[in-house]
C-alpha cells in the first residue's frame, strides 16, 4: 500500500485546498494519471499519480485544506508487478518523498530505493500533440478540455501589439508633491487635493502647502487614511461618518419615504430678506432666506401636525409633538450633523434668527452638544448652498418630515396672465419634502409643501396661519 503525500506544487507553499478528486476507491490507475486537483495560493494544479495500481482510499475530502506533506490517498500497487514482489517486506523502503518536505521513515542506512516498474508503460499523450491532460497548471474554470475549435477567450482581451499601455495616472491620481512636502502637508493636517501646485507640471511645493495652511481653517481630525492597492484610499468608518451611516440606514429602511417637489418663485422672500437686513432688530444677526423658510415651515406645521410627529413602534402609537424642535442639517468639518433648536415655534422671528445663527456657528465649530443633536422633530437641509436644485432627503431618524431647499437662483419665470403674460427673470427655488408615509399621507404632505411654497412666494399669506 502506497501513500501519496501532498507535494508542494509551487515554490515554498505550505498547504493546498482539495478542489476535486478525479479518482475513487477501486479505480485502476496508471502512473501519471491525474488523481486530484488542488488549489494553492498560486494556482490550481492537477496532481498525477506516482504509482500504478488500485485506489484504496481517499484520505482527505474535497474542500479540505491540507498541509504539504500530509498523506492524501492510499494506492494498492499492482499485484502483477514483478518489482513489487521484490519490494514486498522491505520495511526500509521510503515513501516517495517530497523535496524539502515530508517525513522520513526507516533506518538511516542508505540503500538504493526500489521502485516498481509500472505494470503498463505509461502511454501519456506525448508523441505528436500537446496533450491537454498534461499536468500543467490551469484555472479552475478551465477544467474541461477544450473541444477542438471551440475556444472562448477568458478575461479581458490582451492589448494589441504596439498599442501603448494606458497612460498610468501619475501618482495614481494623487496630487504631485515630493515626499517631504507630503509629510509637511500631513503634519499640518492639509489635504493635498485641495492645494494647487505652482511648480513644474503642477507639482505642489513647500510654499504652496504653507500658503494653503495659513488659509485653511483649523486642521481637521480625520481618521488616518490607509493606502489600499491601486491608489485606493481606505478610511476607517468612524465617528460622524459611522453615526451618519447608521442613522441613514435606520431611517431609510424603517420609514417608508415619499418625496415631493415644488418649484416656486421666491422673489418676494428675497425682497423681505433685504428689508429685514436693514432693520435694527436684525442688526447683529445674519438674515438669510433660510430664516424665512424656517419660519414658513413653523407656520405650515401648525396646519400639518403629522409632519411634526413620530412613529412609536413599541407603543404602537403616533406621537404628535407639542413643540417643534427644528433641526438644521449642517455640513461641518467633522461631517454631517443635525443640531436642533428646541421649542422653536415659540420664538419670534428675531429669536429664530439668532437661534439659527448660534446653532450653525456652534455646529461649524464642532461644539454641538449631544443635547443639541437629539430630540429633533422636523429638519431642514439646505442643499442649495452646494449649488444643487434639490434632492431626496432622508428623514432624520424618528422624525416624520424633512425639507430640502435647493439653490435660489435667477431663472426665467412666467408671470402675468392673458395678454400680459410674459417671461421674467425671477428668484426661483425648488423645495423637496420627504415624509414618513406611515404617518403622513400624500394629502397632508402636499398641503404642507404647498403652504411653505405659498408663504415663500407671498410672505403676506403668513397672516393666514
Amino acid at each position, binding site marked *: 500500500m502506497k501513500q*501519496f*503525500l*501532498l*507535494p*508542494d*506544487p509551487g*515554490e515554498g507553499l505550505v498547504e493546498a485546498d482539495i478542489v476535486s478528486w478525479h479518482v475513487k476507491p477501486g479505480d485502476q490507475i496508471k*502512473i*501519471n494519471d491525474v488523481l486530484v486537483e488542488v488549489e494553492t495560493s*498560486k*494556482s*490550481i*494544479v492537477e*496532481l*498525477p499519480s*506516482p504509482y500504478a495500481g488500485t485506489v484504496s482510499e481517499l484520505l482527505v475530502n474535497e474542500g479540505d485544506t491540507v498541509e504539504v506533506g500530509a498523506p492524501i490517498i492510499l494506492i494498492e500497487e499492482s499485484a502483477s508487478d514483478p518489482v513489487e514482489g521484490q519490494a514486498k517486506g522491505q520495511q526500509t523502503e521510503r515513501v*516517495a518523498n517530497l*523535496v*524539502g518536505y*515530508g517525513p*522520513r*521513515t*526507516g533506518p*538511516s542506512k*542508505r540503500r*538504493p*530505493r526500489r*521502485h516498481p*516498474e*509500472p505494470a503498463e*508503460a505509461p*502511454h*501519456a499523450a*506525448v*508523441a*505528436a*500533440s*500537446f*496533450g491537454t491532460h*498534461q*499536468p*500543467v*497548471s*490551469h*484555472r479552475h474554470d*478551465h477544467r474541461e478540455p*477544450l473541444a477542438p475549435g471551440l*475556444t*472562448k*477567450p*477568458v*478575461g479581458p*482581451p*490582451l*492589448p*494589441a*501589439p*504596439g*498599442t501603448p*499601455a494606458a497612460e498610468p495616472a501619475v501618482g495614481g491620481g494623487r496630487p504631485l508633491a515630493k515626499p517631504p512636502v507630503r509629510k509637511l502637508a500631513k503634519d499640518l493636517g492639509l489635504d493635498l487635493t485641495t492645494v494647487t501646485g505652482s511648480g513644474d507640471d503642477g507639482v505642489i511645493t513647500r510654499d504652496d502647502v504653507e500658503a494653503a495652511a495659513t488659509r485653511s481653517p483649523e486642521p481637521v481630525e480625520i481618521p488616518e487614511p490607509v493606502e489600499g492597492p491601486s491608489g485606493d484610499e481606505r478610511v476607517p468608518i468612524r465617528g460622524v461618518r459611522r453615526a451618519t451611516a447608521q442613522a441613514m440606514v435606520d431611517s431609510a429602511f424603517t420609514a417608508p419615504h415619499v418625496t415631493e417637489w415644488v418649484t416656486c418663485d421666491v422673489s418676494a422672500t428675497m425682497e423681505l430678506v433685504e428689508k429685514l437686513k436693514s432693520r435694527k432688530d436684525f442688526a447683529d444677526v445674519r438674515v438669510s432666506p433660510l430664516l424665512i423658510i424656517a419660519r414658513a415651515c413653523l407656520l405650515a406645521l401648525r396646519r400639518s401636525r403629522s409632519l411634526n410627529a413620530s412613529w412609536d413602534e413599541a407603543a404602537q402609537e403616533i406621537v404628535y409633538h407639542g413643540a417643534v424642535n427644528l433641526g438644521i442639517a449642517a455640513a461641518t468639518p467633522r461631517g454631517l450633523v443635525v443640531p436642533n433648536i428646541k421649542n422653536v415655534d415659540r420664538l419670534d422671528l428675531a429669536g429664530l434668527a439668532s437661534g439659527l445663527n448660534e446653532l450653525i456657528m456652534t455646529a461649524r465649530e464642532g461644539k454641538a452638544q449631544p443635547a443639541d443633536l437629539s430630540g429633533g422633530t422636523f429638519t431642514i437641509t439646505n442643499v442649495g448652498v452646494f449649488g444643487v436644485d434639490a434632492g431626496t432627503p432622508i428623514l432624520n431618524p424618528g422624525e416624520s418630515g424633512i425639507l430640502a431647499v435647493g439653490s435660489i437662483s435667477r431663472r426665467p419665470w412666467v408671470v402675468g396672465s392673458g395678454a400680459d403674460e410674459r417671461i421674467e427673470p425671477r428668484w426661483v427655488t425648488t423645495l423637496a419634502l420627504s415624509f414618513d408615509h406611515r404617518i403622513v399621507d400624500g394629502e397632508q404632505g402636499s398641503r404642507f409643501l404647498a403652504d411653505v411654497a405659498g408663504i415663500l412666494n407671498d410672505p403676506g399669506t403668513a397672516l393666514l396661519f
Partner: protein
Amino acid sequence: MSELSGLAGPRAGAQADVDYVQLLTPEGVRVENDAYEFTGDDEQIAGFYRDMVLTRRFDTEATALQRQGELGLWASCLGQEAAQIGSGRALGPQDHVFPSYREHGVARCLDVDPVEVLGLFRGVDQGGWDVVGSRLNLYTVVIGAQTLHATGYAMGLERDGLVGTGDPERDAAVVAYLGDGATSQGDVSEAFVFSASYNAPVVFFCQNNQWAISEPIERQSKIPLFKRSSGFGIPGVRVDGNDVLATFAVTSKALEQARSGSGPSFIEAYTYRMGAHTTSDDPTKYRLADEVEHWRLRDPIARVKVYLARSGGVTQSFFDDVDAEADDLAADIRKRCLDLPDPALVDAFDQVYAEQTPYLVEQQATYTAYLNSFEVDGPESGDGVR
C-alpha cells in the same frame, strides 16, 4: 513605421504572416528560401523527430515528477523542441553552449544525461554535469547573465587561436541561449557590445516564446527582436522556431560564420511556450486559450511527423518505436531520479573552491565531529542539504 506592419494584429505571437525563415510549413510541406537551405537527408530529419519526441517525453515526465513532489521546480520546454533540437544539432564538435534554464533539448544534443538535469531541479546538486566534457555550461537562472559568460568564453576562444584558422577540427564557436525576456536585461546589451567590439565568435540564440513569464513580447520591444541586435552592429535573423529544419539551417550558417572569424550574430527563433513558465506559474491568468490554440496548430513535432509519413519514406513502425523509446526513457529517468542520492552537507565544504583551503578543512572537520556526536541509528539524521 511601415516595416513594422507585420506586427499589427491581435497578438504578435499569433501572426500568420510573420516574416521569418521557414523551410517546413506547419502542414509538413518543405519550402524554399533564398538564403537558407536544409542540406540534410530524411534520415537526419527522422533523427530530429526522435530527438524532439524524446525531449518532449522527458519534459512531460519531469513536470509530472514535480507535481508528485519529486522536483522542487520544473521549467518546461513544451513547444520549443524544434528551436532547441534544430540549433543543438547544428553544433560542431568544438562548439560550447551557455544555456538558460529551459534548454533540455540542447542538453540532449550534447549528450547530458537528463537525470543530471533533474538533479538540479530536485535540489540534490547545483548542476552536476561535466561542463567541459559535455560542452554545455550549467543552467543559468539569472536572466541574461549567460550571454556575458558566453561572450567572455568566445573572446577567450579567439585569444586561444581557435577561431578563423580554417581548420574544421580546430575552429570553435559559442552559442548563448536566451529568451525574449532576457533581451530587456542590461547584461544582454553589454554582451552585444562586447561581442561586437571584439568580433567574438558567439551566436546569440534567442527563443522568443512570446512570454517573459506574464509579460507579452510586445510590451518588451517595439520592434521585432531580431532587429534589435543590428543597432549593436550584430546581424540578426528571424527563423520559424517551430521549424526544426529552418532552425538547423540558420544556426548552422551562423555558427560557420562565427567559427570562420566573421563575428557574432543574433537569431530570433520565433516560437511559443505551450506550458507554464515554470511549475509555479499559472499561464491562464494572463493569456488567452485561443492564443495557445493558434500555436497548437504550429506544433514543431506534428509537422515533421506529417512530412516523414508523407514524403520521408518512414513507416508507422518508426513512429511506434520512437514512442516506445520515449516511454522507456520516461520510466528510466523516473526511476533514476527517485534513486538520486541525497547529498551530504559535509560535501558542500569541498565544493566552495577548486582547491580546498585550510580554513574550510577545519570547518568541515568540526562539522563532521558535530554530526558524529549524535546516535547513528534511527531515522536519517540531518546530514542532507535537503
